[in-house]
């Protein structure tokens, strides 16, 4: 009994500490990360519009929103899953290293990784539940020979299959794992093959099923996330190696690579091969731009942290053999301190993200005005990154958002939106505004900065008038102004 209680003390402490740190940063602003609002909009729509791709998270979020629309409640809900991911990193690392101390260090570092922490502390997204289920399934698979875990795995995998695209990475990882173990002649239990069979078939079928509409409407563009060409570089930035290392942490990066090398060429380990398979698949998808860069780095960083505990265990054995066991504690503390250099980097990136969120504070007044003073069927034009925010708070339709999968004609649409902001000709603007039935334009500080203008240059005639000025200019388009061909 005592042993069992201790078993959960470390992860519980980890959970509380990491959650507290995350919420401290998240509560610095009443706004969320930009990418969150599209998910809040979807969670609001799912009750009326029914199921769409990967709906599980949206159903959960809609339940939370039903009880409270307070943004801080939503932040707590999302951060719970993100912290549980680190707890799972602890348990997986414990299984591979058999050391509670080293597993706790690994899990702590995984929670503070710059790429993970700064991108997720203020984010509400299916990624939170997706990552949690990804690691939970890894853990359940590793425990599959134990009684009851097969059923747990089956249930969690079914939920995972309808939660996030990460399930594709997961099933590919399983396939690579079986390939690696076959090549290395590692014996596996029969149940592992059966679970893999089930996962591969069910995961793929579920994803084809939930993505049917997107496959039909977007075709192969779905595999590039339908990201418009002009925004491609911001979603797939070309990071240099030092930048990647600073995002993943130098120590997890090098120790992870070392463990992969060691167990690929010199030793054998089923658990290590299992985790390595996911690292290989994530790296391949990252290389071929089939996984968003930040998501790929998050997965890679967390998996490298799992290896960190194993590296510490191996290092301990090595230190004893090399007869420097007396200095072992000093060496470990030294390495942990180096590893904890991720903390200042995380803090720096996190404050930078908080600064990005402040753009919503700037336009909040304007959005409130739109909600109070415009008809419910009004269509608003705003920048793509502001679209979901405007839609969520005002309840009005918008021309474009950063949920690019919604738009078949995304390149043309984005081009039209930019032209409406940039053009000097009223005729061109009116034609485009009519094309999307736009009745209001939000000209925010972000738009001013982006296009280098203080106001819309063509809005000097009768067709467009400024109706609100706080939190950005709101223009009203006279519905009587139409472009007509006269013979």
């Amino acid at each position: 009994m005592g042993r069992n209680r201790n078993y959960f003390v470390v992860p519980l402490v980890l959970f509380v500490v990491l959650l507290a740190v995350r919420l401290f940063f998240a509560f610095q602003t009443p706004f969320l990360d930009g990418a969150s609002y599209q998910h809040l909009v979807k969670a609001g729509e799912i009750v009326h519009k029914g199921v769409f791709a990967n709906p599980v998270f949206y159903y959960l979020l809609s339940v939370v929103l039903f009880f409270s629309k307070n943004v801080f409640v939503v932040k707590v809900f999302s951060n719970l899953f993100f912290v549980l991911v680190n707890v799972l990193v602890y348990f997986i690392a414990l299984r591979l290293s058999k050391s509670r101390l080293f597993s706790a260090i690994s899990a702590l570092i995984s929670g503070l990784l710059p790429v993970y922490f700064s991108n997720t502390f203020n984010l509400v997204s299916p990624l939170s539940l997706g990552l949690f289920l990804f690691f939970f399934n890894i853990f359940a698979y590793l425990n599959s020979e134990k009684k009851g875990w097969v059923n747990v795995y089956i249930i969690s995998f079914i939920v995972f299959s309808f939660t996030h695209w990460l399930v594709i990475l997961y099933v590919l990882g399983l396939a690579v794992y079986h390939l690696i173990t076959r090549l290395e002649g590692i014996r596996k239990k029969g149940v592992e093959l059966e679970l893999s069979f089930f996962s591969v078939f069910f995961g793929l079928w579920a994803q084809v099923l939930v993505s049917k509409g997107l496959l039909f409407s977007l075709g192969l563009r779905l595999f590039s996330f339908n990201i418009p060409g002009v925004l491609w570089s911001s979603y797939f930035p070309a990071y240099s190696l030092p930048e990647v290392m600073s995002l993943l942490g130098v120590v997890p990066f090098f120790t992870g690579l070392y463990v992969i090398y060691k167990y690929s060429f010199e030793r054998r380990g089923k658990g290590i091969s299992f985790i390595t398979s996911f690292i290989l698949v994530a790296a391949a998808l990252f290389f071929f731009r089939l996984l968003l860069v930040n998501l790929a780095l998050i997965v890679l960083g967390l998996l490298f942290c799992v290896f960190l505990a194993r590296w510490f265990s191996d290092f301990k054995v090595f230190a004893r053999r090399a007869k420097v066991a007396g200095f072992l504690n000093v060496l470990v503390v030294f390495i942990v301190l180096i590893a904890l250099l991720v903390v200042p980097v995380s803090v720096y990136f996190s404050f930078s993200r908080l600064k990005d969120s402040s753009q919503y504070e700037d336009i909040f007044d304007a959005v409130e005005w739109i909600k109070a003073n415009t008809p419910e069927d009004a269509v608003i034009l705003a920048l793509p990154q502001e679209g979901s925010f405007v839609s969520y708070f005002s309840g009005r339709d918008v021309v474009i958002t950063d949920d690019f999968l919604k738009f078949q004609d995304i390149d043309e649409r984005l081009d039209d939106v930019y032209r409406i902001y940039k053009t000097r000709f009223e005729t061109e603007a009116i034609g485009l505004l009519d094309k999307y039935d736009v009745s209001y334009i939000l000209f925010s500080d972000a738009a001013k900065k982006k296009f280098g203008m203080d106001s819309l240059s063509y809005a000097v005639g009768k067709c467009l008038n400024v109706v609100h000025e706080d939190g950005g200019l709101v223009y009203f388009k006279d519905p009587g102004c139409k472009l007509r061909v006269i013979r």
Partner: protein
Amino acid sequence: MQVEGDSMRKKILLAVFVLFMLASPVFFRLLGDNYSLPGREVYSFLLHKSAWGIPFAGNIISNVPLFILLFLPLVVVLFSFLLLNLILNELGMKHDFRVVFLVVLSLSPLAQSLAFFAGVNMIVFPVFLLGFLFLLKKRVVLGSALLVFASFLSPAQALVSVLVVFVVKKYWFDDRRLNFVAGLIGGIFLVFHSGFLFSLPDVFANIDFSDFFSEFGSFFGFGIFEIFLAGFGFFSLLRFRKDYSLVIYLFSGILILSFFIVGLRIYSLLIISFLNALIICEIFKRKWHVAVLKNLVLLTIFCGLLFASMSHAITLSKAEPSSKFVQGLTVLSDKKPGVVLTLQEYGDFVEFYSGKLPVVRGESVSSGLFSDYLNMFYSSDFSETLKLMKKYGVRYVIITPEMKNGKVWKKDGEGLVFLVEYDKHFKKLIENEGVAVWEVQYEE
């Protein structure tokens, strides 16, 4: 006696299931009150009776009532399934495997397309299967004659026929006459289908990956899930690589080439269904440690195939022409003579249902005519549009919602859409759920 009764019941159940799956696109189409023949190929065939290179067949089919012609592909595919069952039996496949194969085949989106669209495959496919069956029964002359006949009709068919002759010669029986047959079919391929060889560089250069998958909207594609399953089946087949290496190479070759050559997909369908049946039987026979996983895997496979199939059936049932479009064309049939301006791909529908000629139809149109045709759609200058309409004798204009939503225009109020709405020279004859027919009233 009891066992015989059970067996018969299972056979009836299988036949009903196969019939239901294959007939579902036609069934859904009829439920949507659309009684027109789907696809363009059959209209081309009915209007130009010598098409497909079989003059007498054109005359026969053009006298068949349209309602029967709607079900003819289904009947032909069911007959082909019967032939396939006999072929597999002849090849020594067990009863269980044959049942799984036929179920999997009937669940394939491509098989549904074959049972839905009347086209050249309606003749080629059963003739080929009959020829193959006769060859397996060592009726060389009859079998070869059928394969040679089928080879005249399609280049892909000629290619497959040669390969089949070689396979029969290697694994079934060696007959010197088969060398002659292979040579003859090769000759037919070179003489009658040499254009196919020259078109290959273009075919390879213009590959559209999404055209291979039904989930992307392709009528003649495979389900992603069935391809994936076939991948497992292929690994399972590799166990027989020592004895059947030629078969494995042929399977691989045909599967890869069918990415590029649509005509080969019908044979890929057989291969993919064979591989799927192989892996399903293996999963079924394997000793599982966790029984529930076996049932879940089999259920997932069945659901994966069934859902793709049903979804494809719904897509197929909406194939052009729509009932509203045909209604619009029927209105035109009583009107005075004149040329019809509408989308190029509707050309044969217009001629068939209204008896009036379209401005353009088919694939090969002179560049001058095509340029005028586009100008009539996109120009907002009525005098220019009118001049071109007069030049081609256009009296009727048909605009469908699909044309307004991307096939011709990107938004309402562009070019001709604007003119027909606001210019007094256009009189609306009928509008039915977005399909509008306009008459051009020239000033005398």
